[in-house]
């Protein structure tokens, strides 16, 4: 196998370079613009984050995806409170198609489908965001220490992630989901995070392995910086690109995994619901009342699609080697 340890995971649309190419150049001056009286030019220097933001804003698809995603997340998390029907309310309209009164129709017992979808989306979004947050934090910390210190921790980590290359993660997702999902969405989210941190740990480890050999680390050590300072102040900021991109992708993956598990009956259990469960419950009605089937799926696709576009835009923005947009 070619040395793929340092490459960002074989994610779609990856630029084929290794991540360290992308993050070293801007790091050396650490974004400190020379200020003060002895400044010679009136040109404002740009910090790394400013350049990233500028490049990102040029990526129109990513920016609009980000806005849409934010709106959908807000709608999912809060929308249920402001909608005129609650998910458990029976309305007098049975199996009605989409109308002004019920924008997504109603199901057999007369539940408003929009309220149902909002509730399902709320659970799915909560789970996906929690998974991304927990697995990114854990994965980053473990990957950082493994890459920096190498040795035993690194060995254990690599053997552990090897296991997950052999066993399809679905086995563990299903086992844990089947066991713990009954105790609520948070339990399910933590179960998913317990498996998915390995991929981000691999990426961070790869970046750290190459960054730790850089001159500026040596310089920092010569100046008396201890390990903690080197890891958190010097290395981590330079690995932030791959970490953020992977965190974004994790949201998309988590939402797809959660809905798949729930569809198979191994994830979210009733009386709770999620987008996957809604689809699974309504699949029988798909040909007669297609709105029950279309809308939950549409929500999943919108969330995953915007997340993927956002990740793509971020990847480009964090990669100074891409020259399409001048920073």
């Amino acid at each position, binding site marked *: 196998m070619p040395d793929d340890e340092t490459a960002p995971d074989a994610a*779609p649309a990856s630029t084929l370079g290794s991540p360290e190419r992308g993050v070293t150049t801007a790091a050396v001056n650490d974004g400190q613009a020379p200020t003060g009286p002895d400044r010679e030019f009136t040109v404002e220097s740009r910090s790394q984050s400013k350049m990233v933001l500028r490049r990102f804003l040029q990526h129109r698809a990513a920016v609009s995806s980000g806005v849409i995603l934010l709106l959908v997340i807000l709608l999912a998390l809060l929308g249920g409170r402001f909608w005129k029907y609650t998910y458990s309310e029976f309305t007098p309209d049975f199996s009605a198609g989409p109308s002004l009164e019920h924008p997504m129709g109603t199901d057999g017992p007369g539940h408003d489908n929009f309220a149902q979808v909002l509730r399902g989306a709320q659970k799915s979004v909560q789970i996906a965001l929690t998974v991304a947050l927990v697995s990114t934090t854990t994965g980053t910390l473990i990957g950082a220490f493994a890459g920096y210190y190498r040795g035993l921790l690194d060995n254990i980590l690599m053997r552990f992630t090897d*296991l997950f290359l*052999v066993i*399809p993660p679905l*086995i563990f997702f299903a086992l844990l989901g089947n066991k713990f999902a009954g105790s609520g969405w948070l339990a399910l989210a933590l179960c998913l995070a317990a498996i998915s941190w390995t991929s981000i740990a691999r990426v961070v480890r790869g970046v750290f392995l190459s960054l730790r050999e850089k001159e500026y680390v040596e310089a920092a050590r010569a100046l008396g910086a201890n390990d903690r300072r080197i890891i958190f102040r010097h290395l981590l900021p330079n690995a932030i690109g791959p970490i953020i991109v992977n965190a974004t992708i994790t949201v998309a993956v988590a939402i797809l995994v959660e809905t798949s598990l729930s*569809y198979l009956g*191994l994830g979210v259990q009733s009386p709770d619901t999620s987008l996957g469960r809604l689809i699974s419950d309504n699949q029988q009605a798909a040909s007669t009342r297609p709105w029950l089937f279309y809308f939950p799926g549409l929500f999943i*696709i919108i969330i995953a699609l915007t*997340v993927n576009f956002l990740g793509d835009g971020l990847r480009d923005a964090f990669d100074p080697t891409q020259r399409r947009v001048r920073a």
Partner: protein
Amino acid sequence: MFGFVVRRLLTSVLVLFLASILVYVSVAALGDPLAELRSNPRTPRSVIEAKRRELNLDKPIPVRYGIWLKDFVGGDMGRDLKGREIQPRLVRALGLTLRLAILSTILAVFLAMVVGVYSAVRQYSISDYAFTFTGFLFLSMPVFWLAALLKEFGALRINRLFGERIVYTVGDSSPNLTGSFWHRMGDYAGHLALPTLALALVSFAAWSRYQRATMLDVLNSDYVRLARAKGIKNSRVLIRHALRNALIPLTTVVAIDIGAVFAGAVITESVFGWSAMGRLFINGVKDNDTNTLLAFMMVTGVFVILFNLLADVLYGVLDPRIRV
């Protein structure tokens, strides 16, 4: 090369062994195989006790794992909770799942190559953007939703179009299938079409993005510029010079993703009601059936390992620079 393969196989056996411990212990520790029996209050205590002894549940987990391992090394996959031999069912299920997985992989690789190369050659054209968007769309689509969409809406349209039942939506073949060879093959194909398409479209998405990136890399390389400067025809530059190199990395990606294809197959099968590896797996999880789950894991694990090894060997054959 030979030494490399042997070394890789040996480490793979070790990894499989560790994986089997991990899965066995988690299944055994997380679930109770007798839960269903216990849930019925009228089951006599003696029956539960007898079942417990029959399944060796009265012994500690390491001992049970040892028994399983001894049987497995001896070529016996054991019995499931209902006392049926796992092996014959596994072989049948594996045949069906492989049929689906292999066909959809071939279809997906072919589509990914064509689309990826085309959008790289016509970078930033309208069709490139359209393909990019389609790729992202399938990447963001849950496979079960796509499968159900094809099943509930696609099948109806196709059958109406041809005026007879061409594609089927349930099962892997019609029950009590008899008739000539071609008739039977047609029936299999009709049952395979939609699941294969659903699974292929989902894996195609990521691979075509990857193929586009590699092809762009190659097209911007110096030797392609040289080939053009020499005055070689454009089609020849693309096919003989660029494409041949741009195809190499895809082999690795496809091999690594084979586990994901298996997982996708499990879900797709469950949408179309196939009784194959997916059913075995899902029932295994729901029943906390260690033997069935272990059999599933070992089989998929062996395939993942073999495919990765194959990819590495192929990579060496295709790209002389990294020969070991």
